[in-house]
C-alpha cells in the first residue's frame, strides 16, 4: 500500500498527490510514468510522474478527473492509501542541449512536461514553455512553469486568462516572428500533439510527443499500447512514452484510444451513482491489509 502524504486541489477537477513510494522516488527521471490500481476490482491506469523526492521517498503525480479511476482517485485525501503503484516505467525524456526548445503542454500535461523542462533548462537550453488550458480554472502550476522556463506563455481557449487561443497558435506566432526553435516537446491531448507535429514536421524541427495509449501491465508484456511509427509497431510502455512526432501515426492512436469509449462511460456513470461506496471500498483495503498483517 502506498500512503498519500499530501493531496491538494490545484485546478478545476485537478489534484496533486505526493505519495510514499521510495523505490520509484529513487529511480524516477523526467518523462517516466507509473501505473496504479486503487482497489481489488480496480483497473490499472498509467499516470506521468511530475517529480520525486528521493530523500523523502515520495513521488508526485497530478490527476485530472476524466474517467472512473481518475475521478475516484481524486476523492482521496491526505492519509489515504493507494493499493498498487509500479514504476518508474518507460524511457526518460531525452535531455541534451538543443539551443532553443519549445515545450507545449495542455492543462494536466503541464505537470508531465515540467520535470523535462527543468532538466532541459538545467543543461543550458533556452526554454520556451507554452501552457494551454480550456479556461482560467484549468491553468495549473503557473509559478513552476515560469521557473522551469526562460519564457512562459499561458494560453486559454476562452481567453479568460493569458492569451486567447491554442498552444499551437503561440508556436505559430513565434515561428512567424522568425524565432529559431531547435526542439519541441508536446504533451497533451492527441489532437494538440498531432497539430504540433503537422506544424513542425515541414520545418524539420525535431519534435517529441508523449503518447498516452491504453496500457495494462506497462512492462511490454501485453502489447495493448502498441502504436504505429511509420510502418513499425512500437510499444508505448517500453519503447516510449516519448516518440518522434514526425513518424507517429496519430490516426491509429486516436482510433485505438477510442476502443473502450462506451465502457469508460458506463464505468463513469456507475461510479457517479456509487461514489461513497467506491470510496469506502478503497479505504477498506488498508484496514484489510492491516488486519492481515496483525493477524
Amino acid at each position, binding site marked *: 500500500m502506498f500512503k498519500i502524504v499530501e493531496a491538494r486541489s490545484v485546478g478545476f477537477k485537478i489534484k496533486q498527490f505526493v505519495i510514499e513510494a521510495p523505490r520509484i522516488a529513487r529511480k524516477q527521471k523526467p518523462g517516466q510514468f507509473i501505473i496504479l*490500481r486503487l482497489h481489488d476490482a480496480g483497473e490499472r491506469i498509467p499516470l506521468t510522474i511530475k517529480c520525486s523526492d528521493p530523500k523523502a521517498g515520495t513521488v508526485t503525480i497530478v490527476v485530472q478527473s476524466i474517467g472512473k479511476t481518475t475521478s475516484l482517485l481524486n476523492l482521496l485525501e491526505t492519509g489515504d492509501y493507494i493499493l498498487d503503484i*509500479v514504476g518508474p516505467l518507460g524511457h526518460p525524456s531525452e535531455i541534451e542541449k538543443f539551443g532553443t526548445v519549445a515545450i507545449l503542454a495542455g492543462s494536466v500535461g503541464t505537470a508531465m512536461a515540467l520535470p523535462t523542462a527543468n532538466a532541459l533548462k538545467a543543461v543550458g537550453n533556452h526554454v520556451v514553455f507554452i501552457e494551454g488550458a480550456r479556461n482560467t480554472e484549468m491553468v495549473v502550476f503557473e509559478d513552476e512553469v515560469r521557473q522551469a522556463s526562460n519564457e512562459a506563455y499561458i494560453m486559454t481557449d476562452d481567453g479568460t486568462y493569458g492569451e486567447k487561443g491554442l498552444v499551437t497558435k503561440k508556436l505559430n506566432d513565434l515561428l512567424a516572428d522568425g524565432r529559431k526553435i531547435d526542439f519541441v516537446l508536446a504533451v497533451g491531448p492527441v489532437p494538440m500533439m498531432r497539430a504540433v507535429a503537422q506544424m513542425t514536421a515541414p520545418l524539420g524541427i525535431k519534435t517529441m510527443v508523449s503518447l498516452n495509449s491504453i496500457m495494462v501491465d506497462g512492462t511490454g508484456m501485453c502489447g495493448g499500447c502498441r502504436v504505429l511509427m511509420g510502418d513499425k509497431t512500437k510499444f508505448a510502455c517500453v519503447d516510449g512514452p516519448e516518440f518522434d512526432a514526425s513518424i507517429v501515426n496519430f490516426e491509429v492512436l486516436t482510433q485505438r484510444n477510442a476502443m473502450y469509449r462506451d*465502457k469508460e462511460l458506463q464505468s463513469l456513470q456507475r461510479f457517479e451513482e456509487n461514489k461513497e461506496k467506491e470510496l469506502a471500498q478503497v479505504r477498506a483495503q488498508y484496514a484489510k491489509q492491516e488486519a492481515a498483517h496483525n493477524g
Partner: protein
Amino acid sequence: MVEKNTLPNKERMKIERRPMPEQNPELRSHNFKEVNLGLSAEDARIEASRCIACGKPACVTTCPVGVKVREVVDLIYAGDYLAAAAKMREDNALPAITGRVCPQEDQCEGGCIVGNKGKPVAIGNLERFIADFERESGKLGLPTNDPATGKSVAIVGSGPAGLSAAGDLIQKGHRVTVFEALHELGGVLIYGIPEFRLPKDIVRGEVDNLRKMGVVFETNVVVGKSVTIDELMQDEHYDAIFVATGAGLPKFLGIPGEHLNGVYSANEFLTRINLMRAYRFPEYDEPVYDCRDRDVVVVGGGNTAMDAVRTAKRLGAKSATLVYRRSEVEMPARKEEVHHAKEEGIQFLMLTNPIEMLGDEKGWLTGARCMRMELGEPDESGRRSPVEIKGSEFILPANMAVIGAGTSANPLIQGSTPDLKTNKKNYIVIDEETTRTSKRGVFAGGDIVTGGATVILAMGAGRKAAVSIHEYLTTGVWETAPKETATKA
C-alpha cells in the same frame, strides 16, 4: 508398514484407467469454473493400483523435476494421501498446479510402461488428487527449513521458475525475496492460464505455502526499472540473483490491419480476463471487447491460443474459431486441451493462415483475409512447413481476433544490466549445467533463457538453478564459462 499392491501385473493391466470427471461441455462453455472436477479417493486408489511397479520407472526420469512418482503412487494405493503429498513436495513445490497444467502425455505418462499396451497410469490426475486432498485437509506437509545460512537470494519473477526456486532455496536456509512486476503473484499462472484450467485460488494457496515457509514477496517491483540487478547486489546486499522474468513481449503476425480495434495479442486478451477479471465488467473496472454474439478468430496452435479461444467461447462468442497454419498433428497444445476445446464447440480451421486483418471505416475489425496452406518440406524445427496454396484466398468474418503467435524476450533486465550476456534474440545466455549467467552471482532460468515453453520446464529450470545457487552460496566459487544455449525458434 504401507499396504502393498499384491494384485498380479496381468490383473492390474486389465483395470481401466479411471476417467477424470468433467463439467458438462455445454454447461462449462458458458462459465469460467474448472473443467476437470478431480478424482474421488476411491478412483484415485483404483488408478494407483494400475501401476505395475516396473523395474525402471520412466515416469521419474521423464519428469523435469524428478518427482519420485513410484513412491508417491504406492502411498496413494496405501491410502496415505497426506504422506503421498509430502513425498511429492520433496521434488515439486507446486503439485496442485502441475497436476493441472503439465503436458503429462509427453512426460511421466508418456514414459509409463502401462501405456505401451493400454492407457498409462493417470499420474497427473493422481498428483492433482493428493495436492487437493492435502489442501482441503488443512494438514499441510510443508518441509522444514535447514538452519539459517545468513545468505540471501533475490528472485526476479514469481512465475513457475521463480516460485519453484524460492521453495527449494528457502528450505536450504537462505533468505529469499521474490520480486514481481505485477500486483498479483504467480506470473503466467495468474495472468496467462485461465480460471477454468487453473483456478486462481489454487495459485494463491501455493504462494501462501511458500510464504508460510518464510519466502518474502514484493509485488509492484519491475527489476530493471524500479531497481537494477546491480543495485540489488550492491545496495540491498543480495548474495545471489535468479532471473526468471519469463518470455515477455508478444509477437504479432506483421500483417496489415493488426492495429484495428478488436485485435489483441493473446497476452493482452488473457491478462485482461485472468489478471484483471474483465469478464466481470463492470463489477471489475478493466474492460475487454464484448464478443457476445460476435465472431472470434484466434490465431495459433499452442496452449495459449487454446486458452484464448476457449475463453472467447465462454464470453459468449457466436463463433470461436482456431486458425492454425499447420495441421492438427503439429499443434503444440496439450491433447487434453484440444479435446476439451472440441467438446466445447470450438471450430478448428487447420492449414489456414491470415494474411490481412480487415476493418470498417471506424477502425473496427470485420474479418481476416486468409490463405489455405499445405505442408511442404520439414523446417529447422523438424515440422513440415506450411506453404500457401495459390488462389485459395478467402475472408473469415471476425469482430475480434487474438494473436497467439508466441513471444520474444522482454528487454528490461538485459537493457539495465550491461554485463549480462544475451544471444541474438536477446534471451539470457547461461551455462546449461549451472544456470550461471555471464555475471557473477546472477543465475537465470525459464522462458527468459529458452523462449516460450511450459510451466513444468520453467519449474525444472528453477529447481536446477536452486541447486546451483545453493552450491555457489555455500562454496563461494564462481567459474564463468557460459555456453550458448539453444533457443527455441
